């Protein structure tokens, strides 16, 4: 059992927001998905106040050891989410964490108030870091902006607030400290790293959104360093993620200070990756002493 911000989870493995659509997965896998649910808590795809179509395709580019995506936060908007998605997500066998993103602090506050008021929701995650949408302002890149956002939404709910940190910041640990001081209950990191791919034929950006976010094993070393740096500066729980594909990787993030971990891109390769990572991590924990790392330079 894992306790995260006062919520009891059966284990420490979550999904990264936007890397698993439990509603679509249930269409593909049926109720077997619920019987063998891959995560110990489920984090929704980010919702915004208004519906969004997302970015024009192409949206994906396979990168060395990973993926660049430019999805653009397609979602049904707050009303559509509450009416059609929330009842289905409430049927999942694990606590629900809803990810929200606003294009202003007031919009974020409205989302937090509306979502936080629902009994089906155990916690909220503030997406202040998505690098794909042309807001002109990435709140999570700046400690002061992050503090203002968290201070604005904090009074809107008593439920735990997780701030999802972006790795595309000069000092992610300073942003984490600012989030903590403004009332965040936990931080999660990393979101995707900004990236780009060019069409080999034209030399123009391949992705419809021109730039995208890099995820997968390619970013694991960077994520691990940022998790360690953040965990060294804050008292609140840290949820670590970035290229986790095995229990050994998860154990590394725990050793770096994470209280829980999330599996993202690896779920694209295997929908049961979260369950496998949890089992492998439990096995390693039983083993006690840390074994040799999976790879070294020697």
């Amino acid at each position, binding site marked *: 059992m894992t306790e995260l911000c006062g919520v009891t989870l059966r284990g420490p493995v979550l999904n990264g927001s936007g890397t698993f659509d439990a509603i679509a997965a249930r269409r593909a896998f049926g109720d077997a998905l619920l019987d063998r649910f891959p995560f110990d808590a489920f984090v929704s*795809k980010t919702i915004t106040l208004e519906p969004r179509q997302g970015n024009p395709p192409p949206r994906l580019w396979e990168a*060395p050891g990973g993926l660049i995506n430019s999805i653009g936060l397609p979602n049904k908007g707050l009303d559509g989410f509450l009416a059609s998605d929330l009842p289905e997500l409430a049927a999942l066998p694990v606590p629900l964490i809803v990810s929200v993103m606003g294009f202003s602090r007031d919009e974020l506050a409205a989302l937090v108030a509306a979502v936080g008021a629902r009994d089906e929701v155990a916690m909220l995650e503030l997406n202040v870091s998505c690098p794909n949408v042309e807001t002109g302002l990435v709140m999570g890149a700046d400690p002061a902006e992050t503090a203002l956002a968290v201070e604005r939404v904090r009074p809107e709910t008593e439920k735990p607030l997780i701030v999802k940190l972006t790795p595309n910041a000069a000092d992610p640990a300073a942003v984490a400290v600012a989030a903590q001081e403004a009332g965040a209950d936990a931080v999660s990191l990393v979101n995707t790293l900004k990236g780009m791919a060019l069409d080999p034929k034209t030399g123009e950006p391949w992705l419809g959104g021109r730039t995208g976010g890099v995820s997968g094993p390619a970013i694991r070393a960077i994520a691990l360093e940022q998790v360690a740096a953040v965990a060294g500066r804050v008292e609140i729980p840290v949820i670590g993620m970035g290229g986790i594909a095995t229990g050994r990787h998860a154990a590394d993030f725990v050793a770096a200070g994470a209280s829980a971990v999330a599996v993202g891109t690896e779920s*694209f390769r295997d*929908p049961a990756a979260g369950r496998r990572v949890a089992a492998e991590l439990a096995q390693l924990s039983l083993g006690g002493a840390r074994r040799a790392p999976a790879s070294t330079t020697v």
Partner: protein
Amino acid sequence: MTEPRTLAPPERRVARVSGVERLGAYDLITALDRSGPRDPCPGQFYMLAAVDAWGGGVDERPYLPRAFSFARGRVEGDGVALGFLLEAIGPGTERLSVLAPDESLALVGPLGVGFRLPARGTRPLLVGGGIGAAPLLCWQEELGQCTVLLGFRSAAHAQAAALFAGTPRVVTDDGSVGRQALVTELLAKELDEDAHVTVYACGPPAMLEAVRALCAERDVPAQLAMESGMACGFGACFGCVVPTKDGYVRLCVDGPVLDCDLLETAL
């Protein structure tokens, strides 16, 4: 009508490669799936990856699994022998094309929705372009005897026509097999003679768009098995969207077979 969607187990599993067959430009890889459903619907697809040496090629690719409609699904002993037709054109298909018997193939599936039965009062008409012949093979097996029109680049590619029952009509881009023509020319002639058909088509985007336009102007029902780059195959990544009259839809969960009526364009 319930949609033609056989549910997949919610995890990646391993199947043993039981056969590899070279067919000119293509490879037909057969794997014995002993832990998945025995009744996938024609038009559905699987996400495939080699268990060994998946990654570490040029640019450290492949990393993600690759989506393939199954071309054959025949119950065999305690499993189903799944046949996949592929052409080595990139790091993923190159690795899959050199799979050897007894090697392990990782798969998730069957995924997506398959072909729906012909509209009332119509006969099925199958139209394939290149590797797009794959899902039409198992659909023909299920439908029984039906007209099949196929277009290929060259004689090497046209060898895939031999997989079909009966005598499919074949044209090629270079005239090396059949006439030098586009398969849509055959389709236009068929529709002119008898438009009481439901068209099932799979092939490259330009061909599918030509099929869509031909069928739309004649009010002929048509179902297109479409393709788009996918990371996951089960709706998680939102990467495989195509534009429709209802906005973007994910081909992996709402397709890959889409009704022509839903599309402004198949490009």
